[in-house]
């Protein structure tokens, strides 16, 4: 009855930006990104990638309400960097490491196929 529409999980509401940034007014070099239609799948991964950057002082995410499909990602960096640069770095690291993972997995599976000849 009051179940949220299923398409809301991936259809962006009208006039809403997929990714937006709000600068923190009280803390220097801090900002909060709002990412629409995302959940822990991406949030936790980005948080980890951000924390591995030594320019990042703080990185955390939250999903304010389980029925609203957006996440807040807060980043604070050292003065030499900015939150958006840190996130950009995290994303490009992610792209590269996933590509590596993909290759590794494919290689391993092709080995299996040729060795046993029966699988798939």
């Amino acid at each position, binding site marked *: 009855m009051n179940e949220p529409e*299923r*398409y809301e*999980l991936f259809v962006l509401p009208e006039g809403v930006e*997929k*990714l937006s*940034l709000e*600068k923190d*007014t009280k803390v220097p070099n801090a*900002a909060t990104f709002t990412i629409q239609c995302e959940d*822990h*799948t*991406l949030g*936790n*991964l980005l*948080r*980890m990638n951000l*924390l*591995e*950057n*030594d320019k990042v002082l703080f990185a955390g995410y939250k999903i304010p309400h389980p029925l609203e499909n957006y996440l807040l990602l807060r980043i604070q960096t050292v003065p030499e960097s*900015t*939150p*958006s*640069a840190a*996130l*950009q770095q995290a*994303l*490009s*690291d*992610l*792209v*590269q*490491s*996933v*590509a*590596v*993972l*993909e290759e*590794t*997995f*494919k290689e*391993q*599976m092709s*080995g*299996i196929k040729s060795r046993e000849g029966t*699988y*798939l």
Partner: protein
Amino acid sequence: MSGKDVATKMKTRVILGEDRILHGSSFDAPTSFASVGVENGLNVEKFTEEVKVEVNDVSEDGNDLVFELSGVDAPLANTLRRILLSEVPTMAIEIAEFRDNTSVIQDEVFAHRLGLVPIKADPAFFETHVSGNEHTPENTLIFDLNVKCFRDINNEVVNSKVFASALVWTPFGEQAERFAENPPQVVHPDILLAKLAPGQRIDVRCYVTKGVGKVHAKWSPVATASYRLLPEPVIVAQPKSEEASRIAQTCPTKVFDIEDSGELVVARPRQCTMCRECIRPPPDAQHSAHGVYTPAVELRRVKTHFIFSVESTGILPPDRLVRDAIGVLKDRALFYAELFDQKDFEEHMAAASHSDGDDDASDDETKPMLE
């Protein structure tokens, strides 16, 4: 043990004690262990060096895959698992049009049962159907189910059970040629869908569309996708021979072996279920002066080594599912990386800091909205 060894152990191992778990959390920040000189943090080169995939086991029907993923952190493994469960697309019955249903099972209940039947069709050949739009051969498959139960001349009841095999594919548009080689069909023809009495009939047309598990579990391509950390039972102090054989016998999964020399060795660590039987003090345990019992075995798990098990529902082979999942993640990362390039957040940041002290400017901006 030096500080460095302790830090490395904290970082890479979870330790299971008799009554507690140590170092269960992860230490992501690069400075976590800087004071003792242990490098933390990750970069792509290090990731490339460390990441490893090893296939352990494939079941006979090819639907279950067990592989080990090591050298990655928990969030990446968890992301893969979550994507496998809820974001790898498959095909499932989305709309059921009832033309006739005189059976005892209600339309909506039967429709729900239909939705959960796995349909063997490669989702890569289809586009996503947006609800409300027209069904086209590019985004929809049609299955018909038309079963009537009756008595034959020998008074035998025919078709009293409706199985999934009654769902027959009806080619839509030029689909007959497109899928001539492997026609779409149900994965398991022997799923019982309904029971009928003589004279009853079910006639349904089903529209199969592409979707993902987070919208409805019927689109989830896996029965389960899970991982566990690699168990690492370690013998820290070689016990005396009676104690050794006691430990070897007490382990329910037979992890330990006794060498000819009477030494206790960890022979099959992967079989360990972390039941902790081997670290429980025996009734006649030798406690130290402080009343502490020190077991001969230390139970650890490797924090960066994941034993994945993926069980496909049979729609797609499990290796394909994992590849699809990695693909979904890659597309997502690329999408955001590109989106980021289009936006000028640096400027936004600079502009925001500029207008901080400039109250008039922000006032100007808000005024029109207030009026």
